[in-house]
């Protein structure tokens, strides 16, 4: 079986085996193995090109949620998706979009999309291009390195500080969240939770515009 692993962090095929990108059943000739690999790569590319339903400027590949694509038998495509957040309702829309594109563009007869949790998705899995597109779209991208590699912290971010809470001096932030509109580093947290589970609501104190911030996990 030929598989395409679509993220650098995960080299496991949907069947749980480890793959280095070569065929594992050994039954196919070199020529057809190359063909199969090309086929799976094109399936992975198609699935990865699907746009995130809630942030339709960024693809699933750029978001880093596509974990693996395989075609265990001709016409039967297996896709592994990982949610950004456990309860992310967009995962169902993603699965439907992947199925549609693979049926229409690649002639897949049966598309099976599985949700996997391990290893957990991290905001560090968003590609550079993905971060650029988020910022362009008005969503402050997550700060790099604050995700899976960092310890889980409580007291993740300062609240909005006002004169009425002088006993709570602002905790220093390691790296400021920049306003995606004017680039200012002077921004404040309005709410840890925003329009979707993966975002927090902030406001720029320079240009006064509110904006979404893709949270670090």
């Amino acid at each position: 079986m030929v598989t395409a692993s679509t993220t650098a962090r995960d080299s496991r095929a949907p069947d749980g085996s480890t793959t280095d990108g070569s065929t594992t059943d050994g039954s196919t000739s070199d020529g057809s193995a190359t063909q199969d690999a090309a086929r799976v790569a094109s399936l992975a590319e198609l699935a990865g090109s699907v746009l995130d339903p809630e942030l339709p400027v960024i693809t699933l590949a750029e978001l880093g949620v596509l974990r693996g694509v395989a075609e265990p038998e001709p016409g039967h495509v297996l896709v592994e998706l990982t949610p950004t957040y456990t309860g992310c309702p967009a995962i169902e829309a993603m699965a439907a979009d992947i199925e549609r594109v693979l049926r229409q563009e690649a002639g897949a007869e049966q598309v099976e999309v599985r949700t996997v949790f391990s290893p957990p998705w991290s905001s560090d899995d968003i590609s550079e291009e993905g971060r650029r597109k988020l910022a362009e779209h008005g969503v402050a991208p997550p700060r790099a390195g604050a995700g899976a590699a960092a310890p889980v912290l409580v007291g993740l971010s300062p609240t909005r500080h006002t004169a009425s809470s002088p006993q709570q001096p602002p905790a220093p932030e390691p790296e400021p969240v920049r306003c995606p509109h004017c680039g200012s580093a002077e921004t404040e947290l309005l709410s840890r939770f925003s329009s979707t589970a993966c975002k927090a609501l902030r406001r720029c104190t320079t240009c006064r515009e509110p904006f979404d911030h893709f949270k670090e996990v």
Partner: protein
Amino acid sequence: MTSTAPPTPATLPLGDDALILSHRLGEWAGHAPVLEEEVALANIALDLLGQARALYTGLADVLGSEDEIAFLREERAFRNCQLVEQPNGDFAHTIVRQLFFSTYQQPLYARLSPVLPLAAKAVRETAYHRDHAEQWTLRLGDGTEESHGRTQRAVDTLWRYTGELFQPIEGLEVDWQELAEEWSAGVRDVFDRAGLTVPEGPREGAWSAGAGRQGLHTEPFGRLLAEMQHLHRSHPGATW
């Protein structure tokens, strides 16, 4: 999941905690004091619902589909702790319940992360829940006389449900004593900063509450289940 993964029924109490608290938080939709809080509580509810679904899906071979597990079990079959089924009360009451539960769930999931992929996934989300509850407890406890009074009242009322959290769940290899100590230290630290007093009432023993893990629940739980389950039970097999 590795070979040392918990046996399947061991994750049922975790799923039930998540589902029932998710339902309670969902009751705030349309009633929260400000829009941002409405969104925050709904977001936390959504995270918890996602946890419950994933944990129930893992139990499909033993207990049936996630819908069957959520909507067709009787009260005595639920293994959630009694804390999460307590009614929302006022906003302070909900926040204190959130503080008590998230200060328990986040370090519990951290301990389960090596053997339970869902816990490894959700532990970072629960850190946000805990942060949210702590920040609100500080503001309410150290706020006005009114907000302080309401928050202390909530602490006093809910305290007796907190001992149950550290009853060992069979099949989960966790040092419950150590977890309880971490919880106490975390809660006391927030209380100190918020100007709240640790109640003197019992958390364990004859006068405490807590038999949810054995399927015994408090009176409000029946009404919660009736509301949560009636649609599914009234229209079996219905789809959108």
